[in-house]
């Protein structure tokens, strides 16, 4: 996927004025947060489960190599194969080689953000293999030449008319304003693709070390058809998804659907362990797990380690005021919202993604809903510091911080100056108490009034109180 993160400001400006996008984002804001709150209220143990999940993830990371080895041993024991890929390129090449081994022409795909991350579809197409996305949202996007704007609701930026339009164009059927009709249309067309595919690629929400199994969570059932019908099933996933046992996986499953869609449980939670057994009547003959690193192993032991706990539920972006205002595409790469603002700089570099961790008010909502208690604001602050220390922040920011530091280190001057600007601002505001135009502050006053200071400066008030206390 092309990287557009450096254009975050421009993309956001366009997004804010895009009437259709704003309408579509309204559906998100009205839906997920309310549903999550209801589901959480129904499970009194929810917060305790979050604590246990965070602790368990930390334990896994501290023993990550041991659990990964155990997982590999058990995949092989069940007749599967494990492929280790340090980079996105390694992973694409590995997947292509497996496809070529079985002479694949078409590949069906269940929803997988890791395959977005490694840009798999473009790579397969360039090499003469047709990838077919089968998740309804992803399928719509593929027809449009578009990309997901959300990690679990990929087509959240689109409205019904957009879907009707593209289906009419590509399927040559009449337009419809009934989502049920459109979904039935996709169902019929994708049935033939499922049956014809040579290889099925899915992601994995969890890899179970104890059993060598992978698990996918879906509501549509596309992931199941993707892995059951073709001769070869390839699971493309990343190294931090490993969990010790089925019981440990269960702990995360109790949190995942509730945090994501607000469901009690997703419709299909499917555990896959190796290829079909000798006397099974259906199922894939080959089972491959492609374990992608792509920068994750470097997060172990570093300041970003907590991010490896992420289970990709999307609660952080569903509750983020910035995501809700500008949508996922503004972030300019695969992972949007708060979790994306932490991960993207790690994967594509802070040089390109520096604006993302700055696009936060640090309201803390993301951290407050995270099922594995990732301190997302703290991790974004880490990137801001990193950016500043690498001299990557924009000139205006550096100049502003620099001049603030100059005065802050000279308290008398600072107090004199703040007292002065306090008076000037109150004069500017007049009787209304609001400033409509501020020199150097048009970024604020173009959109809203600046309230004038309501009284004397903090230090002035503090000093008079101290004096009064001494007298009494």
């Amino acid at each position: 996927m092309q990287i557009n993160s450096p254009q975050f400001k421009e993309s956001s400006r366009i997004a804010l004025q895009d009437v259709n996008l704003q309408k579509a984002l309204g559906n998100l804001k009205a839906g997920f947060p309310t549903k999550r709150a209801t589901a959480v209220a129904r499970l009194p143990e929810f917060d305790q489960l979050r604590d246990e999940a965070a602790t368990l993830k930390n334990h896994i990371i501290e023993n990550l190599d041991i659990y990964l080895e155990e997982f590999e041993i058990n995949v092989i024991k069940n007749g599967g194969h494990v492929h280790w890929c340090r980079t996105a390129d390694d992973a694409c090449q590995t997947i292509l080689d497996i496809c070529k081994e079985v002479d694949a022409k078409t590949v069906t795909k269940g929803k997988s953000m890791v395959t977005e991350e490694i840009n798999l579809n473009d790579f397969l197409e360039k090499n003469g293999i047709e990838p077919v996305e089968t998740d309804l949202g992803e399928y719509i996007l593929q027809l449009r030449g578009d990309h997901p704007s959300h990690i679990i609701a990929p087509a959240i930026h689109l409205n019904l008319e957009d879907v009707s339009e593209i289906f009419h164009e590509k399927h040559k059927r009449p337009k419809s304003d009934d989502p049920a009709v459109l979904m039935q249309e996709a169902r019929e067309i994708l049935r033939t693709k499922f049956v014809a595919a040579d290889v099925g690629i899915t992601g994995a929400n969890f890899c179970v070390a104890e059993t060598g199994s992978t698990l996918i969570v879906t509501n549509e059932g596309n992931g199941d058809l993707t892995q059951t019908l073709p001769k070869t099933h390839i699971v493309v996933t990343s190294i931090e998804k490993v969990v010790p046992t089925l019981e440990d996986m269960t702990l995360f499953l109790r949190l995942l659907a509730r945090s994501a869609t607000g469901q009690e449980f997703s419709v299909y939670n499917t555990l896959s362990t190796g290829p079909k057994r000798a006397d099974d009547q259906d199922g894939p003959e080959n089972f491959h797990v492609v374990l992608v690193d792509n920068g994750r192993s470097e997060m172990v032991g570093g300041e970003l380690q907590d991010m490896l706990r992420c289970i990709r539920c999307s609660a952080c972006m569903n509750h983020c005021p910035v995501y809700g205002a500008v949508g996922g595409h503004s972030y300019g790469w695969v992972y949007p919202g708060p979790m994306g603002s932490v991960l993207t700089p790690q994967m594509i570099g802070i040089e390109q993604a520096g604006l993302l961790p700055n696009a936060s008010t640090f309201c803390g909502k993301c951290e407050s809903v995270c099922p594995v208690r990732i301190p997302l604001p703290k991790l974004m602050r880490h990137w801001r510091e990193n950016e500043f220390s690498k001299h990557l922040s924009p000139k205006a920011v550096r100049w502003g911080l620099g001049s603030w530091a100059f005065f802050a280190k000279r308290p008398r001057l600072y107090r004199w100056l703040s007292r002065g600007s306090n008076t000037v601002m109150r004069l500017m505001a007049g009787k209304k108490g609001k400033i409509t135009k501020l020199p150097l502050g048009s970024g604020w006053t173009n959109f809203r009034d600046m309230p004038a200071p309501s009284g004397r400066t903090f230090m002035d008030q503090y000093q008079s109180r101290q004096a009064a206390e001494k007298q009494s």
Partner: protein
Amino acid sequence: MSKAEIFGNIRRGLKRGEPTDAQRASVAARLKPHHNNLIPKRAQLPHAQQVALFVEMAEEAAAEIIEINNGSEIVGEVCRWLQHQNINTLTTATAPILNELEWDQSTINVLSGVGHAGDAASLTTAFAGIAETGTLMLYSRPESPTTLNFLPDNHIVLLKKSDIVGPYEDAWGKLREAIPGNLPRTVNLITGPSRSADIEQRLQMGAHGPKRLLILLLTN
């Protein structure tokens, strides 16, 4: 090559070299006993209440439930439900309890084997029912092909009340007991029929899997 580099990074981050025998042993010790994490109170009810909770949660997830007292009622209920939808073919799994069913008197054309695209309906058994979320557990084996769970438009599942457990953990335990050693190729946890809200967040039933899920809940 990649594996060595990935493990090198991880171990550098953890500030240690290859794990010691003691470290490996401590992980092995954690894997063995299948230690339970916190199990919600909701999943720890007496059996009769578990059954009621299962029914409530499954219906909330849009599954349909018909309670029957004994096996002799299966054919009649299945036929009635299918005929109501003008369906006259059914593919059944070949679990022993299903093999005993007599379809001769019915007008339904009954086949067995794997599922195919375009199938109207299938009949399978469930290995367990999980009360906490109204979830069915099915697993692949020669007499229960996975395609029957996903390709037909309507999926009918026979579940014995005695196979209903409270939490998922009890179902995993039951599975390990029934199939010692390695797991079957796939285990399907199914909660209601297929759905998607990918168009404008408006929920529609029947995305890729079955459009309707009927659970026949058998007392004896």
